[in-house]
């Protein structure tokens, strides 16, 4: 995932065809022909509507360009952003990039499928052996 410092984010960069979508819009109603980048917005990080928008864009509509998270973007939400279909994020000014990478390294896999790894864990790479040590009965 491309992490962008707040001061390095340009809304209308160098002739790129970029659109901004308000977080209450249905992406399925938009004309995405020729669009290279879509900026989705988190007015507050706890307003999760853009996660569904990203999922619909990436997975339902098969959008191939960049989906960029903007607004109140914090390192603790980066992994779920990536899983929902974002591939770039403009971090809020006070965020420390040094702490960001270890968030991506923590989990080897997740239970449910998402916009990137389509199949859920129970279908992909099923490890069905019961735990081997110190189990709760």
């Amino acid at each position, binding site marked *: 995932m491309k992490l962008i410092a707040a001061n390095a984010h340009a809304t209308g960069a160098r002739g790129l065809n970029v659109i901004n979508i308000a977080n209450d819009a249905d992406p399925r109603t938009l004309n995405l022909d020729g669009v290279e980048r879509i900026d989705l917005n988190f007015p507050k990080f706890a307003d999760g509507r853009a996660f569904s928008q990203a999922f619909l864009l990436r997975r339902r509509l098969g959008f191939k360009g960049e989906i960029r998270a903007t607004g109140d973007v914090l390192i603790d939400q980066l992994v779920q952003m990536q899983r929902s279909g974002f591939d770039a994020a403009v971090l809020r000014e006070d965020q420390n990039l040094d702490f960001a990478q270890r968030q991506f390294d923590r989990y080897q896999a997740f239970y449910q*499928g998402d916009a990137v790894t389509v199949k859920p864990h129970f279908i992909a790479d099923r490890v069905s052996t019961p735990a081997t040590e110190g189990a709760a009965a």
Partner: protein
Amino acid sequence: MYQYTDFDRQFVRNRADQYRDQLERNLAGTLTDDDFRPLRLQNGWYIQRYAPMLRVAVPYGELASSQLRVLAKIARDYDQPNAQVYQTAQTTQAKLGTAKLPTGYGHFTTRQNIQYNWIPLDKSADVMDLLASVDMHGIQTSGNCIRNITSDERAGIAVDELVDPRPFCEILRQWSTLHPEFAFLPRKFKFAVSGALEDRAATHWHDVGLHLLRNAAGDIGFKVLVGGGMGRTPVIASTIRDFLPWNQILNYLEAVVRVYNRWGRRDNMYKARIKILVKAEGQRFTDEVEAEYRQIIELDGAPHTITQDELDRVSASFVPPALQGDKPDSTQKVVQILRATAENDVEFSRWLKQNVAPHKNPDLRAVTLSFKRLGHAPGDATADQLDTAADLADQFSAGEVRVTHDQNLLLPWVRCDQLAELWHAARKAGLARSNIRLLTDMISCPGGDFCALANARSIPIAEAITERYQDMDELHDLGEIDLHISGCMNSCGHHHSGHIGILGIDKDGQEWYQVSLGGSDGSTLSGTPVPGKVVGPSFGAAEVPDVIEAVLDTYRRERRHAETFIATFRRVGMDPFKVAANSVRQTAMAELA
């Protein structure tokens, strides 16, 4: 019980590591309190009136004795405030009249979880590690996300069960755990799943209620209810699907939650639950869910269709435990011995009647340990009592207990030839009061002694009523009554669904209580789910036990033969109860009506 795989175990440990990383950044000042709040909430950590509160997830209420012992250890070693915190709390609450705040205990909740009230935040990551060591966590026990999934306390053992809900609960638990799209919904989101004829999970009162059943062809599926909830605006859930094939449930719920995430209100916290959306949109909501579901199937390729392999894998964890010792004997002989013992001992007889329930396996019974007794708040268990419950589970119930919706513990695998022995052991531990489903088996939230949201204290009200109804003859004569107490409109004590509901209200810094009658959780006893009706203006705390007594005396006067409280209420209506309740009023608070 579900057996964790290596993957499950690693996942919970990773989550504990992640939480420690966040806590350390918060304590170091690089993660602000505001940014940390939603993260700690989704691990079960609230900051309450005086100290943090931890809510530990107990998925669909099932606990192993080894887990109970760790919960006991947490109560004993960590549910201990430092002297200053405790003194501040005790001094402040003493002004309201609370004599002594308990420490070193756990509290069972209506959503089958367990909470602690005093763990210092700087020890919170250590507690998460301890929980992870026995496959436990606090994931999504708070926050605006999919919460712990609740179910029938008799899942897998009920005689009226159509389909065992536990494998589906576990599959739902895994699907909803750290779902990337649904971690920041408009508001909290609660599932309850039932697979029996009797609804023991208050499914109509949940954001999503699921009923497992078989259709005419014998296929297993779900009836899907959406939009139930309590709070300021009590709403009974609407059925949006009569039958959904079992293997489509995740795809369908993805559609429900996605529509809610997109459409749910975020401008007003009190209108953000899905119940408001379902009410406002009506058929349009259902149509949108169905359209979204079709797109998930047709365009996304139905990725979360549950495979038979996965259902089989998970179901394998839920085979009934092998019973130890001789083959248990439910024959005439045992029944006769039980009956003879019961005839000689009215207390044992009452315990068999109230605390012992029939079982799918005729050799077994389900036994409820009562955590409703004088001197303890409803659903509170000390560290020693948690250990004792673990011992009883090992000795009598294949090492398993269930946390019940009514805030007790149920032993699901008790041999009927060991009932007398269990009764003696439970009695010695103070957990054999024969009040299950009776008046004093009340539901109560922690209220204003602990909770920052509460408008009034719940525990002293519960205590005053418990104190007044100590006579077991009287209690059994009154019969089965749901008394539910909440300390505020958030309704954690489910006052809306009580036959008698009590709601704490704050008026100019004073504690007042609104009493409602005739609510139903949707069980056979209680009838069609419905919120209770308020009897009139609020009462002062001291008046509440008198109001309850007046209401119960009215019932005794009006009832016919063995008619229950709720049946009498339905037949004669509100008026005589209202008159009786208001006759004990000493103060007028008409403006609060």
